[in-house]
C-alpha cells in the first residue's frame, strides 16, 4: 500500500517530464509532483460559503476508495495478503465509488463549472465502466477467475497469443486513457477551457483537500498502468511466497514497467490532439464493442 502511494507522484512526474522532453521543452523535475503536494498540504483551505460536509469529507473518501483499489492490484508480487477480499469487479466498482463522490463534490458548491465537469464525467463513466466490465469478462473467462492474483498467475503460466487478448488490451488502454482524463479525452494540463472535465470538478478545491484529490488521481494512473502490466505483461511478478531476491527482481521489473507505461502514455499524448466532447462516446463505444467482441468470441470458442 505504501509502495503504490510513494510511487504514484513519481509516475506522474516522469510522464510530464517525458512529455516535455518530447516537445523539446526542459520540463519540471520528475520530483515536482511531490513538491506540489507538499506545498498544497501546507496551504490554507479556502472553502466556498455554501460548501457542505460532503464537500469536506469527499476528498478523503475518494482517496481511500482509490487507494484500496490500487492496493489490491498486484504490483511486484502476487498473493497479496488480502487479495481474496476483492476481485477485479470490486476494483472497478471501487473506482466507481470514488468517481461518484468526486462528481457529487463537483456539484456541491453549485457552480456551472462543477456541474459541467460532473455531467461529462458521468457520461464518460457510463460507457467506460461497462467497457471495463466487459474487459474483465474477457480476462476472467480466459483465466477462469476474477481474482487478480489468479489471473496474473494464469497469464504467467500460460503464455499464449489470443485474438481476445488483443481486443481486451486495446479496450483497456482506451478505458485507462479516458478514466485518467488524459489526451485525447481530457487534458490534465488545462484550466479555463470548456473542454476540461476532471479539472472542472475539482475547481473549488484548494489546499490540503486538493492535495489529497491530486494524490488520488495520481494513484489511479498508477493503478491502471499496473493493472495493464499485471494482466498483459506479468513477467517478473514474484510468485506467492517468493524469497527476497524474487521480490527484489519483481520490484525492479515493476519500476521498469511503470517507466515504459509512462513513456508510452507521454508518446501517445504528444502525438494526438484533444477530441471534441461528443466524439469521446464514439471512442469509448469502441472500447465497449471491443470488450463485447472479445467476450462473444470466448463464449463461442474457448480457444480464441
Amino acid at each position, binding site marked *: 500500500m505504501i509502495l503504490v502511494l510513494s510511487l504514484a507522484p513519481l509516475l506522474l512526474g516522469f510522464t510530464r517530464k517525458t512529455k516535455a522532453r518530447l516537445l523539446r521543452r526542459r520540463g519540471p523535475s520528475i520530483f515536482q509532483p511531490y513538491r506540489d503536494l507538499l506545498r498544497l498540504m501546507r496551504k490554507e483551505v479556502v472553502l466556498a460559503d455554501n460548501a457542505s460536509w460532503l464537500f469536506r469529507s469527499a476528498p478523503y473518501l475518494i482517496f481511500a476508495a482509490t487507494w*484500496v483499489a490500487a492496493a489490491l492490484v498486484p504490483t511486484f508480487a502476487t498473493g497479496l495478503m488480502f487479495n481474496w477480499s476483492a476481485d477485479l469487479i470490486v476494483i472497478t466498482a471501487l473506482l466507481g465509488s470514488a468517481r461518484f463522490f468526486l462528481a457529487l463534490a463537483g456539484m456541491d458548491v453549485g457552480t456551472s463549472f462543477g456541474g459541467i465537469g460532473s*455531467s461529462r464525467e*458521468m457520461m464518460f463513466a457510463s460507457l467506460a465502466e461497462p467497457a471495463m466490465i466487459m474487459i474483465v469478462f474477457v480476462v476472467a473467462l480466459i483465466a477462469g477467475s476474477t481474482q487478480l492474483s489468479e489471473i496474473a498467475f494464469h497469464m504467467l503460466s500460460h503464455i499464449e497469443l489470443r485474438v481476445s487478448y488483443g481486443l481486451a488490451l486495446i479496450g483497456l488502454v482506451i478505458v485507462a486513457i479516458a478514466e485518467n482524463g488524459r489526451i485525447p479525452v481530457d487534458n490534465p494540463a488545462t484550466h479555463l477551457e470548456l473542454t476540461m472535465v476532471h479539472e472542472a470538478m475539482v475547481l473549488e478545491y484548494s489546499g490540503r483537500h486538493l492535495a489529497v484529490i491530486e494524490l488520488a488521481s495520481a494513484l489511479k494512473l498508477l493503478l491502471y498502468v499496473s493493472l495493464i502490466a499485471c494482466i498483459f505483461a506479468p513477467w517478473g511478478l514474484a510468485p506467492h511466497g517468493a524469497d527476497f531476491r524474487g521480490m527484489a527482481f519483481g520490484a525492479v521489473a515493476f519500476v521498469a514497467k511503470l517507466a515504459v507505461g509512462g513513456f508510452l502514455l507521454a508518446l501517445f499524448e504528444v502525438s494526438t490532439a484533444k477530441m471534441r466532447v461528443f466524439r469521446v*462516446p464514439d471512442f469509448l463505444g469502441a472500447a465497449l464493442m471491443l470488450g463485447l467482441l472479445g467476450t462473444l468470441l470466448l463464449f463461442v470458442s474457448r480457444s480464441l
Partner: protein
Amino acid sequence: MSLTVALLSIAALLGAAGLAIALARSVEATRIIYGLCFGFSLILFVAAVVPRGAAALTAALPLGLPWIGAHFRMDVLSAFFLAIVNLGGAAASLYAIGYGAHEKHPSRILPFFPAFLAGMNLVLLADDAFSFLVAWEFMSLSSWALVMAHHHDAENRRAGFIYLLMASFGTLALLMAFGLLAGSVGGYSFADIRDAAHGPSWKSGLVLALVLLGAGSKAGLVPLHIWLPLAHPAAPSHVSALMSGVMTKVAIYGFIRIVFDLLGPPEFWWSMPTLTLGAITAMLGILSATIQSDLKKLLAYSTIENIGIIFVALGLALAFKANGMALPAALAFTAALFHVFNHSLFKSLLFFGAGAVQGATGERDIERLGGLIHSMPRTAFVFLGACLAISALPPLNGFVSEWLVFQAVLLSPSLPQWSLKLLVPAVGVALALSAALCAGCFVRAYGVAFLGRARSIAAKDARETDPWSLSAMSGLLALCLLAGLFPSYMIDTITPAAKLFVGGHVPTQGDIPWMSIVPIAESRSSYNGLLVFVFIIFSASVAALIVRRFGSKAIRRGPAWDCGYPDPSPATQYTGSSFAQPIRRTLGNVAFVARDHLDMPPPGDTRPARFGIEVHDRVWDGIYTPILRGVEFCADQLNRMNYLTIQEYLGLVFIALVGLLLVIAIWP
C-alpha cells in the same frame, strides 16, 4: 404455528382497515392505524423468519368457493418474500406515523393501507389458483384506491385509470395462465397443478407468455411498465414506497411460483424471452430515469431498471436449470432473490426520502430544489446512503447482488445452446451499462436536489423532517449497510429456497473465515464487503490524520471561485436537464429520439431565445397508440349497435345462439 400467526395477523390487518373507517373522524386515527399496521407487520415478519421445520406449513379455510375452500401454505419461498413484504410494510407504517400528518384527508388512505398490506401477504400465502387471484386482485384494487387518494388532480385520475386497466389486464393474463395449468380436470389447488402431467411444449410456452404478461405488468416489465411512472408518483410517498419497493416483489414472487414451481421442468428457450425482456427493461428503465426531473417518477423508472436486473438473473437461472447445471442455477437464483431483498430496502428508503423532501418543500421537481443538504442534513445523509446502495457501489448491498449476477453471467459460456451463447454476452453488456448509468442517474438526482444552492424559496426554507420518518429511513439504511457487510447471512437464508426451486445450492457461506462470500470456489472469485469497508474507513482516517498532523489546519470561508466569474443567481447552476444532456445526446437519441431545439432570434429581433427538448416515448408511440386507435375504431363501429330495431336485436341473439351450438357440435 407461524402460518396460523400469519393468517391471524392478516385478519387483524383487515380488522384495522375496518377500524379505520370507524375512526374516520378521530384526530388520532392516523397514529393508531399506522401503529397497528407497524405492529402487525412486525408480527408477520417474525412469523416469517422464525425457524421452521423443512416441511411447508399448510392450512385450509372454508372460505371462498364452497367446493374448493381457501388453501394457504408457507414454504421457504413464501417465507422469504413474506419477510421482505413485512419489513417494507413495517418501515412504511413507521414512516407514515410521522408522514401521515401532512395528509389533508387521511380517511381516504387509512382504510386502504392495511387492506393493501393484507392483500400482499395473502398473495404470498395462497396455495390455490382461486385464492391467489382473489388476493392478487384485492392487492391491485386496494393499491388503486391509494393511488386515487388525491383524485382532484387530473393527472392522478389518469394515472389511476391506466393503472386499473393494466392491473385488470395482468389479472386476466394470470387467470388464463391458471386455466391452462389446471387443464380440463380443473384441479385448481397448487398441489394438484404441481402433480398434474405437464402438457405439451406449446402449452407451457403459452403459460410462460401469459405469466410474463400478468406478473410482468405488475412488476413493470417493458413494454407493460407504462403505469408505474404514472401511478407511483401519484400515490402518497409511503404508499409509493410500498408499491415500488414491495408490490413489484410480490409480482416477482408470482413469476417464480408459477414458472419455477408449478410449470414443471423448464426448457432452455424459456430463458430467452425472460433474458431479453429483462435486459431491455433494465436499459430503457435507467435511461428514462436519467432524463426525468420529477424525483418520484425518476425513482419509479429506476424500479423498472431493477426489475429488469432481477428478471435477467431469473432468466439465467432458468437457462442453467434447464441444462441441469445446478450450481450456476442456484447462483443466479440467489442473485435474483438477493437483489429482490436489496431493492425493497433501498427503493423504499429513496421513496421515503422523496416524501420527506416533498413534505418539507412541496416540490417533487428536482429543478426547483437544491441545497437541501444544509436544511435537511439527516434526510440528505440517509438519501445519500440509499443512492450509493442503488448505484451498486461497494461496500453497500446493491453491489453484492449485482456482483453475484455478473458471476452467474461468467459461468454461462458452458451453456450448450448457441442461441444462449450469443444472447448472454449482449445481456451482460446491458447489465453493465445499466449499472454504470444508474450511478450517473443518482449523482444527478442527488446533486441537483440536495447539493448546490437552493433554486426556489421553498427549498431554501425547508425544515428537517419528523423523527418517525427519520427513524424508518435510518433503520432501512442500517439494513442496507448490514446486508452489504455480511452478505453471507443473506445468501444462506436464500439457500433453502434455491435448493427447492432449482435443485442446487451455492456452498454454505456462514462458515467461511472472515465472512467473505465465495459463490463457487475461492480460486474463482470471492468478495468480502466487511474488509473492503474496514479498509476504506481505515485509509480515509489515516489520510485525514496525516493531513491534520502534518498539513495546515487553516480554513477560510469565501465566495465560490468558479474560475473567477461566480454568478450569484442560483439559476446559473447546472440543472438536471443540462446534467442529463450528454447522455440524452449519446444514448437518448436512439432510445427516445431525443432532439434539442434552439430558437435563436436574429440580432435586432426582440423575441426571447428559446431552447426546447423533444423526447418521445417509443413504447407508448409504438404499442399503445395503435392499440388505443384500434379500440377507438372498434368502439365507433360498434356504436351503431346501439341503435338497432328490436327485430335486429332478436336476430343477433339468434345468430349468436346458432353460432355457439355449432361450436359445441364441432368441438371434439
